[in-house]
């Protein structure tokens, strides 16, 4: 395979080398967080973490463990850079992104260090493409200070049922309200369609209720009734991750911050995680 004919000497200049037989195992999960142009890459011996942020209110992280890669070599404790995610995804799909079985793009991602571009070697059907993407100084990702000790309510659901709810949510509504409670209604999404038709003024509202004993509910641990509102525009990007996932965990902490964690299986059945943090619109105590 052409990619493996890289000489050993070349390899030593890279602080990070990551190879995948199927580039889709990286591109699919990156698409789930690609709501902004720029992404912060952070690599450690454990694997790769890619972060995308929006106006300090929303943060998405994709975790791809070292085990997912066919080769993952890192010469420093931590390697970080920022790169244009849109361009990176275009390069990963440079061969057209065919989904025919047996046809996949192989990837070798190499980085020499601060100031150097990110080099991608992509191969499909004997054709090799080399892409060099300029990197930038990585910004410090916002620390949402979301720690598990502060979590008040936690629910783990099979994604199937949530996918349907999200696809039907009235996206013209500005705000989504989520209630989690140890008593009825347990887990509720409220969408207020306030702007539907001006002749009718407030044309009503809609809510979706998930009972705690539903067979879709894998875990239900709610200590306190909490209702929080989140901007729909912030939650919308997470629907891409939801679409890819098979399970989702929804957690809120005492401040009303929302953590959505998605379990994604890639083409080879391996597990990766995507996480969204979102800050609340305003506190509504019920």
């Amino acid at each position, binding site marked *: 395979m052409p990619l493996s004919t890289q000489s050993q000497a070349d390899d030593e200049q890279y602080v990070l080398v990551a190879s995948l037989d199927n580039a889709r195992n990286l591109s699919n999960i990156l698409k789930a967080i690609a709501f902004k142009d720029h992404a912060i890459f952070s690599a450690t011996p454990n694997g790769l973490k890619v972060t995308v942020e929006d106006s300090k209110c929303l943060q998405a992280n994709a975790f791809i463990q070292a085990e997912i890669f066919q080769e993952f070599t890192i010469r420093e404790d931590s390697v970080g850079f920022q790169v244009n995610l849109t361009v990176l995804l275009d390069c990963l799909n440079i061969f057209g992104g065919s989904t025919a079985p047996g046809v996949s793009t192989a990837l070798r991602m190499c980085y020499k260090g601060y100031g150097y571009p990110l080099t991608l070697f992509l191969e499909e059907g004997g054709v090799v493409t080399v892409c060099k993407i300029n990197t930038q100084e990585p910004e410090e990702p916002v620390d949402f200070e979301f720690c598990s000790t502060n979590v008040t309510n936690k629910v783990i659901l099979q994604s199937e*049922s949530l996918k*349907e*709810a999200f*696809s*039907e949510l*009235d996206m013209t509504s500005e705000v989504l309200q989520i209630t989690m409670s140890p008593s009825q209604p347990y887990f509720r999404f409220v969408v207020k*369609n306030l702007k*539907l*038709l001006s*002749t*009718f*003024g*407030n*044309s*009503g*509202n*809609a*809510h*979706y*209720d*998930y*009972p705690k*004993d*539903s*067979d*879709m509910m894998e875990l239900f641990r709610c200590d306190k009734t909490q209702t929080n509102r989140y901007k729909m525009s912030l939650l919308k990007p997470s629907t891409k991750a939801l679409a890819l996932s098979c399970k989702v965990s929804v957690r809120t902490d005492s401040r009303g911050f929302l953590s959505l964690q998605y379990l994604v299986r890639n083409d080879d059945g391996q597990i990766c995680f995507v996480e969204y943090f979102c800050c609340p619109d305003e506190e509504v105590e019920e």
Partner: protein
Amino acid sequence: MDCVVTGGNVKVLAKAIHSLSRIGDELYVEPQEDGLALRSVNSSRSAYACFLFAPLFFSRYTIPSGHTFRCKIAIKSVQAVFRSLATLEKTVEKCHIELDEQKNHLTFTLHCKHGLMKTHNLSFQDSESLQAVFDKDSYANVFRSHPRLLVDTVVHFPPSLEEVTVSVSDERMWVRNHVEEEADQSKAMLTELCLASDEFDHFAVQAHNSVTFCLKELRGLLVFAESTGLPISMYFDEPGSPIVLSVTDSVLEGNFVLATLSDDHNHRKNNTKRLVDKLKCTLPPPPPDDFMNDDIDAYLIAMDTSIAPGPSATCLSTPPVADSICSKQSAAANHRTRLHSEEEEEEEEEEYETADSGRPPNKKFCSLFFGSVLSPSSQMTTQPVTSQEVLASDSEDDVQ
């Protein structure tokens, strides 16, 4: 009011609502003793549709006792409840419709698999009763066919086409697009289909008439009928009298009533005659084949009937109450096919009709509607009713 729809009927209800949305922006809901009536009308009052679901359609059907309840809801809100038909089929087990009169909410609750409950609280407004004035059983021409026949016919016309003309003889039905006299003849494309009587399940012609109506509003019914497989019955009379298309089964009845063009004054007749003259020259005679074994004269006769002076401009075969609605020659309401309005320079400016006002429709489409049926406690009606006896002659929305 408390109704429950279960299983496959939820999808039927959803489809009916989607097809009503092709007519107007508001859904009129009226739970009656003989079933739940869902109605819609377009802004120019030239198209009306009503679905009546018998109590047996529901697994529970309870209506408000003591007083009649009527309301109207923004149809988009109701469509949002039943947004994805595929999902409805797969996941919805039942749909519960409840009235909360204090909050002016009609609540639709979808009970789905895995315990998920989707609740939609929709605001409504009180409304007058919406009823169209028509008597389809008295119409001269009656047809019935599988929806496939009409769908296959309509597919030949572009989606943007506003009006079609349907002409019948004893053995045939012609469907062609209606082209305005002023339209640029060199750019006009004329499409005509001929259907033989044996393509229909029932074909009864008493009058060789030709009616022109708006096709767009009908497409909603065609989609509904095709997906439910119910045969469509078509009723029409003279030009000016509405055309009615119905679907029926043991638990529901849907009626789509469309106004038709009436041929009134000479000016128009002359224009149309000129058009026909032109057509005579430019169109070659139809080739003789199996179902067109009539000679060219019959073909021309068919064209002529569309320009024959129809009944007078005032509404025909409708009760006097309708006079207050459609006989006023001077005013013109906005009509969706503005082509007609434009051609009559002597008419007044068109105005948009509000949902509640009953302006007389454009004198072209002079038929239809509406005796606003006044209940003792009615509000907001602007149409004068001359006598109750007249309205009692309506026969509509019969459930078998």
